[in-house]
């Protein structure tokens, strides 16, 4: 990478790997920091309320407290967040918003409420208050109406937490800012689609947006794109990633170390963050609610929408599909047989990954062997 590229990439890489750094800095300056879990909480509302949003998605942490109260079959990130909350590591937050957009998130909310109830993590001791964002993802009018009201209630709660009021003009500005961010992600994705560039760097840069104040995040991303964006790579197998969203970058790094590249991701992190938030005639709040209930990837979307996946399978430049199903997956695996069949029908070989891809050494052999078959 050229020095200008490196200089522009470094703040993004730093934010991705020190995920609370920017939030801590904002907190130190007295800004109201609002934490959220997952990808379905409308960051626009946090920004409009005057808050500094930060996605709570640890790359690691202690589970000593969690091990006593949260089953080891639970998602590791749930246990890390629970532990961090109980320890006071999230006390910088004015509010922690937990959506009911996955079973894990719902159980996290219930676990944290119970931790409060039994005195394990008391708001009196500085633990941030919790807010359940009960946004349904069933695609029917009654669920949309319910979700709209829950979105309104969230906005009011955020405004109260930040000491402001619900202001439509500020919401309009916030939506414009987040769409500018999404447009930058879309331009990054176009580079990935059009040539051989580092998918690892792209994933990290996109992910960093969740850990930086949005205005700073989009500026950093645009500066990096202006400096050339992700490093060009020599041609190698181009892979589509589907399944459990990768909360970390180790899989992408491993794939690139083996001479291939992940060019697109079907999930929370990566490619699909560039989908624009389209205006709804019902107004700004409906626009935001609809985007997070229907457009962003979500396992609870019903009926499921595989149109993005189908579109990627039709790409001639994609060589194969990685189905990412690490333990303790009990959701995405239900879609694997049909996904594999569709990949085969599209002429794309596929690999089902069932190792913990945080462990590169455990994962390497399967990917290496698979890539070897692609090169024959």
């Amino acid at each position, binding site marked *: 990478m050229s020095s200008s590229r490196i200089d522009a990439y470094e703040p993004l890489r730093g934010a991705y790997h020190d995920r609370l750094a920017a939030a801590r800095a904002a907190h130190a300056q007295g800004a109201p920091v609002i934490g959220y879990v997952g990808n379905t909480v409308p960051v626009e509302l946090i920004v409009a309320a005057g808050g500094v949003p930060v996605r709570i998605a640890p790359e690691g942490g202690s589970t000593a407290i969690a091990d006593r109260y949260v089953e080891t*079959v639970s998602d590791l990130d749930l246990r890390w967040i629970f532990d961090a909350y109980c320890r006071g590591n999230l006390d910088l937050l004015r509010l922690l918003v937990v959506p009911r957009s996955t079973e894990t998130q719902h159980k996290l909310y219930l676990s944290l409420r119970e931790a409060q109830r039994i005195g394990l993590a008391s708001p009196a001791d500085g633990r941030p208050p919790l807010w359940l964002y009960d946004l*349904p993802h069933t695609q029917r009018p009654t669920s949309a109406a319910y979700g709209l009201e829950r979105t309104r209630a969230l906005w009011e709660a955020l405004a109260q937490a930040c000491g402001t009021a619900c202001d439509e003009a500020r919401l309009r500005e916030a939506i414009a800012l987040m769409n500018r961010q999404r447009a930058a992600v879309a331009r990054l994705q176009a580079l990935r689609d059009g040539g051989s560039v580092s998918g690892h760097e792209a994933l990290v840069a996109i992910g960093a947006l969740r850990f930086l104040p949005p205005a700073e995040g989009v500026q950093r991303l645009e500066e990096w794109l202006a400096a050339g964006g992700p490093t060009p790579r020599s041609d190698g197998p181009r892979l589509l990633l589907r399944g459990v969203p990768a909360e970390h970058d180790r899989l992408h790094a491993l794939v690139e170390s083996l001479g291939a590249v992940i060019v697109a991701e079907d999930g929370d992190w990566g490619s699909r963050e560039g989908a624009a938030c389209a205006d709804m005639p019902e107004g700004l709040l409906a626009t935001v609610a609809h985007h997070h209930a229907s457009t962003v990837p979500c396992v*609870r979307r019903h009926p499921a929408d595989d149109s993005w996946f189908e579109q990627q399978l039709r790409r001639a430049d994609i060589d194969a599909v990685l189905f990412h199903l690490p333990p303790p997956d009990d959701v995405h695996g239900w879609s694997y047989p049909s996904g594999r069949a569709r990949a085969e029908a599209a002429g794309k070989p596929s690999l089902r990954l069932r190792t913990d891809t945080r462990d590169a050494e455990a994962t390497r052999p399967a990917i290496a062997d698979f890539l070897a078959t692609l090169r024959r």
Partner: protein
Amino acid sequence: MASDKQLACTASVGERQKAWFGELRRAVFEERRPYAIVNADTPHDLFHVMDVPVVTNQWWAAVIAAKRLSHEYLDGLNAMGFHEDLCRYCSIGMASSLIDLGERTPWGGLPQASLFCARLTCDCMQRVFQQWADHMGAPFVALEAPGSAVLPANWWELSRHRWAELCEPERLDLAVTELRALIVELERLSGRTWSDDALRAFLGRVNQQEECFEEARTLIAQAPRCPVRIGEQITNVMATQWHRGSEWALNHARRFRDEVRERVQAGVAACPGERKRLMWIGAGMWHDTGFYSAFEESHGAVFTWSMYLPFGPDWYIRYGLDDPLRALASRVVTMNEVLHNPPYAPAWMVREAQANRIDGAVVLMPTGCRPAASGTLFITAALERAGIPTHLIESDMVDGRRWNREAAHAGVARFIEERLG
């Protein structure tokens, strides 16, 4: 269940279940009678009022497990590409439709269903039910499982008379709206017209049925020695639960209560050598229900409590039926969470343990069903804080492929010997 059935009413249940299912198959094949496959936490009441028979997914899963066929269906799912960590309890029914075991198919197998219904509790539910419904060419009605920030720990104090306070009113509003949409489907399927009065009368009969179980649970809790093993409690209760509100169910509930009363009055104990009282926490372990009685002879330890009997009275009874659909919605909208999750489950388990003079709790950690596993450690922590020793067993409800009975038995034996004195 334990091979030596102690209650006369228990023996009649199994045959009745089989006969009912045989009649269902006949009606579907010969008369094209519509029926629905539904999850346990859906409002069966609406189906019963509209005379649309239901096969409960979890009941069918238990039938498969009891017939020792789980491994064949689950191995078959694995061979189809569904990996081994996927939920078994809620999917083995689907497996029985996808995989043909020929003459070994339980009771001839599930006939073609006309409707599927499930609450979207865990994230896999729509995936399992949609695939199952697509296989049978039937519609799938999904009910929302909205979250609640109103979490009353002592929920049993509200459920009968103050059920509107169990959750936010907007949650109930959504549930009622969805139940009305389901009713439209049932009208289409059955050709009948819905009546709120019919539901009101039906829920009144459900109340009567559960009041019988209320009497039975109190008799069992207060008896000097446990009069009825949990295996027989479960058999009698769940058979009526799947047919609740029917004349048969109400009569059977009365019969069960009366027989329990007789046994208590006669001083009859399920285990005459009772020395320790255990509670079984979690769903049934349907692939090895004999496990519940495995410690009577050796240790005088009898399982006196499982959730199945007391949950009916505490959760299903609804008084104040001016708006019967709203009352039913209040039962549906939080049911799954109350059974497994904090704060509901830990608080209730402690209350039940104390009321039943429990010496120790054996807690199922269902590793094959993460939604059911979630909350287990909060339950054990609450019991231990209340002075009730606990012991965890890892097993799936229906998948016995990794079940090591000897090791599990040894673990419980040690627990009884070392922690219960």
